[in-house]
């Protein structure tokens, strides 16, 4: 990893050169009317929001879109079908600018899910063509718990480049991967020598709330525990938590037919929905909310680390912020560890 310093003018110059290279840039933008901040395609650095803790949605959609066409089909003559497959060439080179370290780490979990054993062409294409520029966190709130799930406000896992903003408007730049290096090279002269600043000084303080290994251990025998019902009683069963999550990867396959032509899509889904596991026979293996909550927690904190090493949670706290019933995941996990 290479460490450099980039000043305020340099940042602006580098950002312009990224846009000039024809890359699609997603960055956090503040909605006009309220305090919410979310990723949007931007055309200038002025559009990028400042001074917030977390975007409502994670950066997930940049690589794993909310809905994506797998292929299109058309039948012009009876019995004949033409197929238009997913074309990787149509996926633009993309930069996600100013994502949180927890969002960048989220792509490690997503890659585990979607690219272990079988390489998902759509996901892989987006991932290969996307460069992740994370900004370390100077601010955190009570919903943040990255340090409890192997992350941190300055964690670089998953990021291609990480910037730590300095009081002078410049930043410490850590160039982590080859992709990051290629992005830096678009404006290499903007990147000055390391000025010796220690980034630790500029990071938010995020307390460790629980020990993740203890949690994983406790979950091994927890399948039949009463805690699932106790914790999930107030869950309303909406999908907000899954949709704002940087690592949730459940999807459904949907059809968009129009007469003799149509498309098949992959769309985000949520294991919190009753319909998610409903069989055609009418049987539902997860008919109760408590069973669906158990699945959510065990998948992220037990099944995933067992199978692919990484946890399915980066402690971003979005699910807790978004939940209309205040299902605070950090509290729930802490109470399991206790």
């Amino acid at each position, binding site marked *: 990893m290479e460490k450099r310093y980039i000043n305020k003018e340099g940042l602006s110059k580098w950002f312009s050169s990224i846009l000039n290279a024809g890359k699609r840039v997603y960055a956090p933008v503040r909605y006009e009317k309220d305090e919410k901040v979310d990723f949007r395609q931007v055309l200038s650095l002025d559009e990028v929001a400042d001074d917030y803790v977390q975007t409502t949605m994670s950066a997930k959609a940049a690589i794993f879109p909310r809905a994506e066409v797998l292929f299109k089909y058309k039948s012009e003559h009876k019995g004949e079908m033409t197929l238009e497959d997913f074309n990787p060439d149509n996926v633009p080179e993309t930069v996600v600018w100013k994502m949180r370290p927890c969002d960048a780490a989220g792509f490690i979990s997503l890659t585990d899910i979607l690219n272990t054993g079988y390489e998902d062409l759509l996901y892989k294409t987006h991932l290969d063509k996307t460069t992740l520029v994370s900004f370390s966190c100077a601010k955190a709130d009570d919903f943040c718990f990255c340090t409890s799930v192997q992350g941190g406000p300055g964690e670089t896992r998953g990021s291609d480049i990480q910037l730590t903003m300095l009081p002078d408007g410049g930043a410490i730049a850590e160039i982590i991967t080859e992709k990051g290096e290629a992005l830096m090279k678009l404006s290499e002269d903007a990147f000055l020598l390391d000025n010796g600043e220690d980034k630790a000084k500029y990071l938010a303080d995020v307390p460790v709330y629980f020990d993740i290994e203890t949690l994983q251990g406790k979950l091994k025998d927890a399948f039949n525990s009463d805690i699932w019902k106790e914790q999930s009683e107030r869950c309303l069963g909406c999908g907000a938590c899954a949709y704002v999550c940087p690592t949730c990867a459940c999807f459904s396959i949907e059809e968009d037919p129009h007469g003799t032509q149509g498309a098949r899509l992959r*769309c985000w889904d949520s294991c919190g929905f009753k319909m998610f596991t409903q069989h055609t026979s009418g049987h539902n293996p997860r008919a109760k*909310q408590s069973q669906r909550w158990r699945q959510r927690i065990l998948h992220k904190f037990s099944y995933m680390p067992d199978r692919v090493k990484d946890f399915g949670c980066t402690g971003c706290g979005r699910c807790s912020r978004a939940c*209309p019933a205040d299902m605070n995941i950090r509290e729930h996990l802490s109470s399991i560890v206790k």
Partner: protein
Amino acid sequence: MSKIEEKAVQMLGGDVKTVLGYEKGSKGTRPFFCHTTEDAAKLVYDENASTNLAAYLVKQEIKDEGKIGVCANTITLRAIAQLASENQIDMNSLALFTVLDEGKGDVKDFASVDDINAYLADKPLPDSEKYDNLDKKLEAMTSEERWTFWVNEFSRCIKCYACRAACPLCYCTRCITDVNRPQWINPWPSPMANMEWQVNRVMHMTGRCIGCGACQNACPVGIPIGYLSRKMLVDMSKEFGYIPGQAMKDGNSLSTFKPDDQENFIH
């Protein structure tokens, strides 16, 4: 021992297995299912809580648990009265009470929908200022501007259906958006599908919505969807002569036929 705790302890000593109310949470108060007399001390009353507790009472897995005590705030009472009028709640399976003077006063029991309606008579709908401000803004727009406003708002919709889950009156066991043969509404977010979903949601609520705003409070991306149902509620109550936020005694306006309807086309 607080009055609410006292009441819960007394209920749990009888035929009530669970008292549903509120407890302190990480974002103000949150819904709380109290099963034991020890836990009753955690119960607090919150007149301004945004989660409408009635949303839980229509769930089969909660109904299956038997008689439930409910420490209801005003929006919850409104929804329970409406649900009872739609035969979705059996008042005999509930032990319903509230705490007067925004939680500072005495405990008041409700045995019937009439009791609820009498109590609600002088209670205003919540968030009227927020609603009026947006109403003024939207009424000043041309219809094209209004369309653009909503298309823009709905462009953020992620189809998480938190609005559906938080609404006590959205109780279909199979929602129209979950039907795929035929697929009435595309389940993925797109400008048209987002609009279709909200039009459907709001129209299904029209003449039934009690204006609690739970849909809007639940929306993680902050779309002012509560306004739409509220607007219909206000307009409908004028046209059909009912009190906004109170269940109609003789059935919902849009699903009830009357031979003496003032409109000729229906005869």
